[in-house]
């Protein structure tokens, strides 16, 4: 589904990613892990076209999306949710999801119909249900709890009906209970939509619980990839990331 071939990116001579290759199978759920500063978010930024690739290629299906504009890549089927919640504070949950739905179909160019009565209402309703936001459907986004704001960020990405969904630390800033709630929700979403998911996460219990394949990044390079079982037993990963086998 998503193929990354040897991408590299440096900032001022410092390698943020170095010859990274990742391949995601269709309908799979995958984790990208690594210590802070390993280059995880940079990889997301490279995939989505937020920053340009210095070397290497990125494909979605057979389409080369390397260095295409962020808006074009989004329309080709890649959507993301952000590490720091990235929503629209003065719009309600309903309005925000409708905006994302209209963005997907270029409906935001419509200067005549009333937004409130626009035909995407039912679809927005379904996405809110899917993301578990129905109870706060008419709440202004800035008044949502942190967890619901994170869910809204994901719902915005879901509205684009992506082939590949990138989730950058979906549980960041949450307490232990809230984290597991969120992970349960993501797992459900993935099972219902069967899209390909790549997520960044620091909590290893969560990663080992839901990821089918794990990619381990250190200093901008992939040092291991495999199933949770394989990663748990990988000596390089244990040494670099899991704390010398204490975990």
């Amino acid at each position, binding site marked *: 589904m998503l193929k990354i071939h040897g991408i590299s990116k440096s900032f001022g001579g410092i390698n943020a990613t170095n010859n990274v290759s990742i391949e995601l199978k269709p309908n799979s759920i995958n984790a990208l892990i690594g210590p802070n500063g390993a280059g995880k978010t940079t990889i997301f930024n490279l995939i989505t076209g937020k920053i340009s690739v210095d070397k290497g290629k990125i494909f979605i299906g057979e389409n080369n999306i390397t260095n295409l504009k962020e808006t074009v890549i*989004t329309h080709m089927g890649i959507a993301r949710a952000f590490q720091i919640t990235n929503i629209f504070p003065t719009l309600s949950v309903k309005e925000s999801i409708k905006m994302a739905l209209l963005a997907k179909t270029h409906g*935001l160019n419509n200067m005549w119909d009333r937004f409130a009565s626009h035909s995407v209402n039912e679809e927005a309703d379904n996405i809110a249900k899917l993301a578990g936001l129905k109870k706060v459907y008419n709440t202004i986004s800035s008044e949502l709890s942190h967890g619901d704001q994170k869910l809204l960020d994901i719902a915005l990405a879901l509205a684009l009906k992506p082939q590949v969904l990138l989730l950058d630390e979906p549980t960041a800033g949450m307490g232990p209970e809230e984290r597991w709630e969120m992970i349960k929700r993501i797992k459900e979403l993935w099972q219902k939509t069967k899209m390909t998911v790549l997520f960044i996460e620091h909590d290893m219990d969560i990663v080992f619980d839901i990821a089918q394949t794990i990619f381990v990044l250190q200093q901008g390079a992939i040092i291991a990839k495999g199933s949770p079982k394989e990663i748990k037993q990988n000596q390089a990963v244990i040494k670099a990331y899991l704390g010398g086998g204490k975990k």
Partner: protein
Amino acid sequence: MGFLKQDNFKRDVFLGIVVWLFLLLFFFIVPSAGIHDIIQKVFILGLFAMSLNILIGYLGLIAFGHAAFFAAGAYTLGLFLQSNVVNILGSLSIPIAIISAIFVSTVLAAFIGAICIRLKDIYFSFLTLAFQMLIYSIILALVNITGGDQGLMGGFPKPPFLGIDLGKPFDFYAFTIFISIITIILLRQLIESPFGYGLRMIRDNPERPAALGFNNQRHKLIAFIIAGSIAGLAGSLQALLDVGAYPEWAFWAKSAEPLFMILLGGMHSFLGPIMGAFIFEMLNDFVTANTRYYGLVLGLVILSFVLGLRRGLLDWLLIKFYRK
């Protein structure tokens, strides 16, 4: 009459007609030329302020050079009606002059907007101001065409059209308010459309829309052009009212006026700027009749709004009595 309960185009048109008819009746109930003049100015300046509020209130871009389009509309209309074309066009002169004024402002806004919207924050604000001062300098320099610092001299004819004679006070009053209300209704339709919500989305979070596949820059440019064209329309109506056009309409201080109106009336309510225009005009009328310290009084009133209400009057009223 069920549509009155719904927020839709039909209701807006109905309310627009009601307001227009009421103001026509008011013309005869209160036969004061001074009050009629204030009402006309409130609508003209209200349009000017509402056009700027597309950028400030809905898009989050503070333009300091919006009067460039107001002046462009005023001068285009004035020059058009002073030209010999009037003899050829006859009764069509005024409608075509207004359309020309909107067209010139639109083209100017497209040119200036295409450059300015690449910037943000204070850089955007000051680049719009730089363009406005360029237009101001051109108006002063082209003495043979614009009349330089004296403005367009000698007035211009207002040939009647469709039975409307803008030389008559009632016709002018009814026409100005009619054009303003139509523009306000169309603007409301735009602001409440998916396009208008796209503006709010950019204002709230300019980074996120790209990740939704949405082209910010194109949206911003279209909004800038629409704002410029409405300011041009307001300028052309002002030129018709004053039978002339003046270089100070392109000076930076003129751009501050709609900004004050927005601050006074409120930037988060659709009709806030027009309420601001009303307060501004009333202050202007009352204060200048009683003291020469107009600027001081205006400053104190704005300060009291900013520090006391912390928002424009209509915004404050809506929050106080309606939204919460």
